[in-house]
Each structure stands twice: as C-alpha cells, then as structure tokens.
C-alpha cells in the first residue's frame, strides 16, 4: 500500500504513541482537580503546552487546546467576530478551508460583514489588495498559510504587514493546519494574532489541535462550561491527545530540515516521473511558492473518481477535493475560485507525502498513476 494522502491524515508517530501510553492506565486524572492524581495530569498537560509554545515562539498562555483544526478555525473566526457581543467583519479568501468559510458565512448571517478577496489563477492573494479590503468594521482577516488542496503557499508575513499598516488593531488569523507541516513557525516573525494547528497532520493523534491567540486578543468562546483554557475553551482536557500532539511536534521539529528535504524530494520525484510518463498531466501552481508535501495534478480527459478507484484497487491512496457527508467528492471551491471549470476540477487529484513516506515512493507511485491513467485513456 502506497499512502499518498498525508494531507488528509498522517500516521501516528511512534514518539507520540509512546508519550500517550502512560495515560492509558496510570495518568487518568482530570487536570482541573486539586489532589496528587490531578496534579500529575495537570503537569503533563502544562508540560505539553510549554513545549508547544516554545516551538512556536509563543507564550504558554497563548496556546488554547482545541478538539482539532476545524474547531481552532471556528474559534478564530467566530470568536473574533462576536467578541464583546459585536458583529465584527471578516476579510478572507475564497480558497480557505470550509472550517473558515462556513464559519464566516455563519457569522455573516448574524450581521457580520463578509469581504472575500479575489485570488489569482494560482490561488495567491496580493497583500496590498487584502489590506485594501480592511475597513473599520473588520474584526479579523483570515488567510491560510498553505492551501490543503493545491499546496499553494500564501505570502503571510507580507500580508500581515500590509494589513497592520492600514489597521494595526485588526486581528490576523492564519490557518496553518497544512502550512505547519511544511515549515517551522515563529509567531513573532509572522506577527499573526491567531494561528490554527491540527495534530493529526503531523503525526499526532486525531481530535486535538490548538489555536495560538496572541495575548491581548479577545475571543468570544464557542464552548462554555468549566472555564478551562482561561475561559476560552471549556471542557475536560484530552490530556493524552495534547501530550501526543506535543510529542509529535517535538519529533517534527527535531528533524525539521531532514523532513523538509525528504518530503520535498519525494514530491518532486513524483512530479518529475509523472510528467515524463504522462506528458499531458498539468501540475497546479507549479511555478508558484508551494508547501513541500503536496502535489496537485490535473490529468485531462480522466475523471478523478474513476482514477482514484483504480488507484485504490492498485494499492495507492490519494484524494480529490474534500468529501461530503455521503463520501462523494464535491466539486472543489478552491479550484473554482482559481478559475477552473467544474469539468477541469473533476480531473484533478491530490497526492501528498509525509513523515512516514519511504524513499522511492514518489517515483513508484508516479509509475502506478501513469499506468492506471493510461488504462483509462
């Protein structure tokens, strides 16, 4: 089985599994209690938080544990828009993840102005254009660091600068769920105010993520209850998962450079081999700045669902757009925003590589893709 769908999810790193093991039997305490059992859990949770904040160059109090990347995006958009009972406006792009876009249209239905900045045919934003959409009514600007479908990498640093020049007080959120897989993040360098991560994209467990929230940024909580995470996200912590997430991040950062090189090498070899064997294949945004882990390809004349089924039967796991509730692939809103027709979008597939991708996988997978595509041609 050749797994080329790391952008969907990545296997659990052994370091994460090991770090999570004690919580199966021994460390079962609720971190919010006062006795020794609770303290152990609390210490473990806070150690995880300390470690994570250090890796992001943030303060521990600025890390909010959530139930995943989607929840972090929801908290960022809705929390900023509704802060203090307000109806703050959102500025965002049409290629964001649905977790941002649907949160944005939800708050729009409550009266928050929504402003969508156009992207070019590669999906890129122009920093000055983003800034020009910011008004006194804007509460948050949300631009993803890297796109989960195409792999395109947005100019976040420049865009934050442009936006803050126009309105220093506006909150800038970036969905770094995919972006963080590709590069180390320093929130002081990026100067973002909010940043979303999801553990299972980098070898941590599913069901846990975080929202970095710069101190001073206020968010209306989505989940009310016992007041955990300084009131911003109530609920008994998933200590095991938070610890697993921290361990996965540590493992990633420990091999950051080699991870980048390895993953980029496999992705590039995949594209080179496929370009050679299937000359009609078109690689999306190949000339623009991309994250290292993703290859988005259009094979003209071939319906992606059918090729994906053939690849599945041939032992290659890949994907196309996102799946709806029934499991069918939807027509991608990302590709549509980039100017592709629905017919072209239906010919696109995404292949993504990760920490467990063996050397040579890119070449082998490309051969299989070319072979299966040819059988359909």
């Amino acid at each position: 089985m050749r797994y080329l769908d790391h952008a969907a999810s990545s296997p659990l790193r052994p370091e994460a599994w090991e770090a999570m093991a004690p919580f199966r039997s021994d460390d079962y305490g609720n971190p919010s209690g006062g006795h020794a059992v609770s303290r152990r859990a609390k210490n473990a949770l806070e150690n995880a938080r300390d470690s994570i904040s250090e890796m992001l160059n943030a303060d521990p109090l600025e890390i909010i544990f959530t139930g995943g990347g989607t929840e972090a995006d929801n908290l960022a958009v809705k929390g900023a828009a509704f802060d203090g009972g307000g109806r703050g406006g959102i500025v965002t792009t049409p290629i964001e993840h649905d977790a941002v876009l649907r949160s944005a249209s939800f708050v729009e239905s409550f009266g928050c102005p929504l402003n969508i900045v156009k992207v070019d045919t590669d999906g890129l934003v122009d920093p000055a254009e983003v800034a020009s959409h910011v008004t006194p009514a804007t509460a948050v600007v949300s631009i993803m660091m890297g796109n989960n479908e195409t792999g395109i990498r947005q100019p976040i640093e420049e865009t934050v600068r442009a936006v803050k020049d126009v309105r220093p007080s506006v909150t800038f959120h970036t969905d770094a769920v995919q972006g963080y897989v590709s590069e180390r993040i320093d929130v002081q360098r990026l100067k973002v105010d909010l940043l979303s991560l999801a553990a299972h994209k980098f070898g941590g467990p599913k069901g846990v993520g975080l929202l970095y929230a710069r101190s001073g940024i206020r968010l209306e909580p989505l989940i009310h209850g016992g007041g955990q995470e300084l009131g911003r996200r109530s609920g008994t912590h998933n200590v095991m998962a938070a610890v697993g997430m921290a361990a996965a991040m540590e493992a990633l950062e420990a091999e950051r450079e080699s991870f980048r090189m390895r993953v980029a090498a496999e992705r590039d070899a995949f594209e080179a081999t496929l370009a050679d064997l299937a000359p009609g294949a078109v690689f999306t945004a190949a000339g623009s700045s991309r994250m290292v882990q993703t290859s988005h390809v259009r094979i003209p004349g071939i319906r992606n669902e059918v090729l994906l089924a053939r690849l599945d039967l041939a032992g290659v796991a890949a994907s196309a757009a996102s799946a709806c509730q029934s499991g069918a692939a939807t027509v991608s809103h990302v590709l549509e925003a980039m100017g592709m027709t629905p017919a072209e979008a239906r010919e696109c597939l995404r292949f993504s590589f990760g920490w467990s991708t063996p050397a040579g996988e890119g070449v082998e997978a490309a051969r299989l893709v070319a072979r299966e595509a040819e059988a359909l041609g």
Partner: protein
Amino acid sequence: MRALVAMSGGVDSSVAAALAKEAGWEVLGVTMKLWKGPGGEAPTSGCCTVSDAEDARRVAAHLDIPYYVWDYTSEFMSGVVDGFIDDYISGKTPNPCVECNRTVKFSRLMAHAEALDCDRVVTGHYARIESDGDLFRLRRGVDPAKDQSYVLSMLGQKQLAGLWFPVGELTKAETRHIAADLGIRTADKADSQDICFVGTGDYRDFLASQGVNPAPGPIVDKDGTLLGVHHGITNFTIGQRRGLGVSVGEPRYVVRIDPITSTVTVGSREDLGVSQAVLSDMSWVHRPVTGSLAAQYRAHGSAVEAEVEQTAGAVQVRFAEPQLAVARGQTLALYRDDEVVGGGIIHTVSRAAAPPG
C-alpha cells in the same frame, strides 16, 4: 471476474452484492450520489440519502468489499431532473426512474465500470437476463408484484451483455430472507416508494422549489365549456380525478393537458379511453418486433393486448380495448409473454373518436 454493484442502501441491491460475492466474483460496491441539497449536501429524506449511503457502506463493510461513492449529480440533473421539469411544463407525465436508467445507471455507470475492468454491472432490479446463444433476452422477474422489467425496457443487447440482476430469480420475500440469513442490516428496511429527488414531498412542491411557475388557465369539458380555473397545468396528470376543483355531479378525469393554451380538459371515464399511442425514442431489446404483443404503459400496471406497427421510424401501438390513463411522457414497454421486446416513450395518444392530442 469483477463486478460493480450499484448499491442504493436498500435490501435488493445489498443482496445482489452478497449473491455476486457468494458466486465467486470480485465485487466492488458503488453508491451513486445523484442529488444534492442547496448547500451541496446529500438529502436526508426520500431515497438515496446520507443514511442510505451509510447503509450501503455498512453492507459493503460486512461483505468486505471495496466501496465508493461517486458524484453523478450533474449527469442526473441534466439527464433526469431537467427533463422531469420540462415534461411537466409541456403537459406530459415523466418517468424519472426510466430516464435515470437510460442516462445515468446504464450508460455512465456502465462506462465507469468498464474503466475499472469490471465484467458486469450488478443491480438489485427484479428482472431476468437470459442468454440464448448469442442473443440476450430480458424477462420479467420471478415475483410479479416486484417485476421491474418495465423500467429496463430501454436496454439493448450490448448493455444486457454487461448486466446481471441476481435478485430477478427471487421473490421479495426470498430476498429479505437471504438478507436476514446473511446478517445484512437492511433486511427489514422498507422499500422506497418515492422519486429520489422529490422525497416524501409532492412533485408539485418540488417543481415550485425549482422555480416552475406555470400560468393559470381554464378547465373545460370536451365541448369546450368552461368549468373552472386552474393554477398551472403542472398540477395535473392524465387520469387524475382528485383536486380538479370542479363538480358536475359525476366523477371527472383529466383527459387532456394542452401546454400551449394552458387548458386542462376533463371528461368522463369513457372519455379517458385511449385506443392508440405513438411512441418516440423507441429501443428494441434485439430487433424490431411488430404484430400482436402485450403493452404495459405504466410502471405498476399489467400489460394489455395490442397490435404494434412500425412506420417511418415511429411505432404505433393500437390497444385491443381502450385504455385509461395513458399519459404522454410515460414509457410503454412491449412484451411477448414475459419477455420484453422493446420500449419507447408515449409521444401522442388518440382516442377512437377524437383527433390526436
């Protein structure tokens, strides 16, 4: 040998998949997503809902077969829904299940099955395919109450060669029994009676939701006497008795719908009698067959004696006895005993003593 099973989540297609696997085939299951709500989401009522896809997925998991969900919403829209709306607007009564079979299931899906190196497409239809030398015959299913050969009457040799209907040899009771024995969770699932994209609602509400806003018009009797006013011809089908909004002391039935003048003509039961139908979009299972045949002009109706002629590309069906509720737009399937010889769409009908309409 590899088979692609179209799995709707219902008991028939579930058992079809199980029987194919039991017979030693390499089985792949697929659910076709045909319809989506305004936000792009799959429907949650009617047929082919998210819950149905989940049932299909569970059965596939139980049978340990690969399972996919494919998006056919645009083919379905253009092949089935658009025509459904157009037919009602032009005073016809469409049969969307037939159009789905024609344009989606037994064309696109079969093409995709071939692309996956499948030797057969399997469905849960109650009908039988028999091979007789080089010839493929399509016969009614063993269970007369469930026979679906009518909606399969557009199939030809090439398609029949690539299809298999395992439950056609069974009664519904036997199918449910097999499902229960195999531990398939849909054994007791109720059969869907609805049009999949209309759901439990009324087709008129569906048309309204699609922006169909037909003009009001007169309701007249055969002599042209004005009896009342209606709010759109799409609210009526031939043979309809209820909801006419007229009372003349005796039952009245819709006998004609004129889309051009928006006139609905009502008459007595006798006036409903149709003696002849001309078919368009004719397809023959093997080759044209004329003469004395049996004609079935409704999905749930029996076949009646008829004389069939083919002239200049059009097929004329003359019923031995006048038939009630023969509606333009419906499929008419021709049988020789229990074998389907062909099917077409009712284009025009004529009554013994009236001009064609």
